[in-house]
């Protein structure tokens, strides 16, 4: 039995493949004057295209054609579905688009939401690309009142509190 398992190891290795680091970052910055949280989600364009296409196909919305003609609407729809912010009571906050910006190989997807009660106690869920890669790791960095909070999300994680 032990030898059989040992012999199976090389076979398992042959079918496995090397692959890049699957990580995305979302930066959340609180603007106390506007009482608004501005979110910048940084995702590799090729991955975002695949994920937005799959989401559009499953929800019968605008399909992302191919680079560089990515309809913002499809990306925003996907980003809103995969990135969520809830208030202290657990109610989902509406996220408005503030534009998408290509930066190198990445797309910076900008969302914003009004947080009249301030950022403390907000809950965030960052599931961008979880539907694409089982080993996707997402990071949220939130900045408010001179503080900087980092949260790490892996597949299966739900909402996490910012405080």
């Amino acid at each position, binding site marked *: 039995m*032990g*030898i059989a398992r*040992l012999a199976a*190891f*090389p076979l398992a*290795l*042959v079918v*496995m*493949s*090397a*692959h*890049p*680091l699957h*990580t*995305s*970052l979302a930066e959340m910055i609180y603007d106390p004057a506007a009482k608004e949280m501005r979110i910048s989600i*940084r995702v*590799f364009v090729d991955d975002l295209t695949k994920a937005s296409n799959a989401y559009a196909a499953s929800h019968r919305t605008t399909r992302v054609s191919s680079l560089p003609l990515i309809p913002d609407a499809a990306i925003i729809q996907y980003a809103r579905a995969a990135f969520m912010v809830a208030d202290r009571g657990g109610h989902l906050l509406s996220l408005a688009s503030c534009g998408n910006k290509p*930066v*190198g*190989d*990445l797309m910076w997807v900008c969302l914003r939401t009004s947080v009249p009660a301030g950022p403390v106690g907000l809950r965030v869920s960052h599931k961008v690309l979880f539907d694409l890669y*089982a*080993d996707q*790791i997402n*990071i949220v*960095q939130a900045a408010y009142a001179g503080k*900087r*909070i*980092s*949260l*790490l999300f*892996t597949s299966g994680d739900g909402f996490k509190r910012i405080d």
Partner: protein
Amino acid sequence: MTSELFTFVQLGFRHIVNLEAMDHILFLLALAAIYRPRDWRSALWVVTAFTVGHSITLALAVTGAMVLPIKLIEFLIPVTIVATCIENIIVRDRASAPLGRRYRPMFAAVFGLVHGAGFADYLRNLFVDRIALPLFGFNIGIELGQIVVLAFAAAFLLAADRAIRYVRASMPDAATLRLRVLMVSTVVMIVATRWAIERNPW
């Protein structure tokens, strides 16, 4: 600051221990293949040298001090694995090799330079404004992950030794070690060669 550091320690750790990211695991397995349990200090030195190597290029590439062609780096990563396996198979007397006991850590550090450049491409664009702390945390996580992988590699190599002895009970220790090195290095070399062919940039 603590949460930020810990987050990036986790990111580095998870990247190394991720079973789908087999290139780094196989490189560590190839590095560890020549060691016996009593050589654990030497193995740890080699892995730490690898961390030092990849930390240097990671820092240079992420800060923009060095721009590297990613297609070439992606190709060179499996090439380093193949080269390590060939070294495992060919070199039998490392004590008399140039640089003596420092030879293998230096070898690992040089190959670490290539692997660090591979990490950098994916981190550079993501963390453009604050680099130092994420980079530091990521490197700590990588080192911790490597120690865990090394422990599993040691267990796997011991199991390989036992399997060899089960088949050839009378085989001397030195011959068992040699056969294990040949078996592990050959399998890892075949896998890495396939990756190198797939990633051929030309």
